[in-house]
């Protein structure tokens, strides 16, 4: 979708893109295993640990990552987001090299809900044959209540996912911004003025990403296995 007057700028670095699509795949798998039950439940637990690892990694990457991964790149004041939302429905495109002000809040909300979902899962039980690895630390009543939150929060997550997909499609068809493609290629096409105002793109080492991801996995493994 090359339009005149637009320049290609790096937006999502490789770790962000891998994070995003792994999360999409895991979200589908978790939805399937969680609603199927039975022998899919042990897999639901492993999937939950993987989601927790991804979220933990993404939060760290939000401070040290490259491209437009950092929170400081895309978290703007609620007032700014509100101002932005007023022109959301104009056909005029509203390019951003990273997340736009509303999208930034969507990312924060997603990460928060995913963290709640994974964390409550650790303490949940299904009253059949499965319980989270930390359920034994709390009473059955508390675990039951946390399980209710796990189920309620899923509804919020599904609503947020629907909103996210709808917003991306809206940008694609109404505002002619192909965000889906950018999440694969890492490159966005924005007006020169926007690119200039955004400044140079950071690069963060992929080795650093790999090490941080491994560290996140190690932390989750410690939480789950409770070796001490």
């Amino acid at each position, binding site marked *: 979708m090359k339009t005149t007057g637009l320049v290609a700028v790096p937006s999502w670095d490789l770790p962000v893109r891998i994070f995003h699509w792994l999360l999409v795949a895991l979200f589908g798998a978790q939805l399937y295993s969680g609603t*199927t*039950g*039975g*022998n*899919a*439940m*042990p897999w639901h637990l492993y999937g939950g640990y993987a989601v927790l690892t991804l979220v933990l990694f993404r939060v760290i990457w939000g401070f040290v990552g490259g491209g437009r991964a950092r929170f400081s790149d895309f978290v703007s004041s609620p007032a700014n987001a509100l101002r932005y939302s007023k022109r959301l429905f104009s056909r005029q495109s509203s390019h951003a090299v990273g997340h736009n002000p509303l999208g930034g809040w969507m990312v924060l909300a997603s990460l928060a809900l995913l963290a709640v979902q994974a964390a409550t899962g650790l303490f949940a039980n*299904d*009253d*059949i*044959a*499965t319980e989270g690895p930390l359920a034994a630390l709390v009473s059955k009543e508390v675990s*039951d209540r946390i*399980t*209710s939150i796990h*189920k309620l929060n899923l509804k919020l997550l599904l609503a947020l996912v629907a909103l996210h997909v709808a917003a991306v499609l809206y940008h694609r068809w109404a505002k002619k911004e192909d965000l889906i493609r950018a999440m694969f290629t890492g490159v966005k096409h924005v007006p020169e003025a926007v690119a200039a105002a955004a400044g140079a793109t950071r690069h963060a080492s992929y080795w650093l990403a790999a090490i941080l991801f491994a560290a996140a996995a190690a932390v989750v493994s410690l939480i789950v296995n409770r070796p001490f």
Partner: protein
Amino acid sequence: MNIKRSLTLAAVGMILAASVAADAAAQAKPEDLVKQRRAAMTLMAKYIGPVGAMVQGKIPYDAAIVARNSSFVDTLDKMPWDGFQPSTRDVKDTKAKPEIYGNADKFKSRWEHLQEEVGKLAAAAKGGDQNAVKAAFGGVGKACKACHDDFRRE
């Protein structure tokens, strides 16, 4: 007395006997019915629990315990259901949804399905094939879940 008449009498007798059994549950105190059906469920959980832990590899597999527990559950899973009388609708100490009493057929199909799946588990456990036990256990878990999803409050 001709054959037709004695058959009719026998049929009436059987219907009376069956309704006496059902009435016994219907006339019991609602609080007692809830207590009793929960007791049956609790025992099902007690005996199915270790089977789950074994097929999931959390504790060492013991075929004798799996066979014994599965056969216990195969009997226990007959017990809770006549405790779900409409009279228990307003009892506080239960997670059973009142929808049960408006959807008696669906509820029944749920517990019949559970009994079917537990029957398969008990048969597999007797056979001793660990993979068959594991597959059957998954079916039991799904049957539990299907009914809980529809008829149990959070």
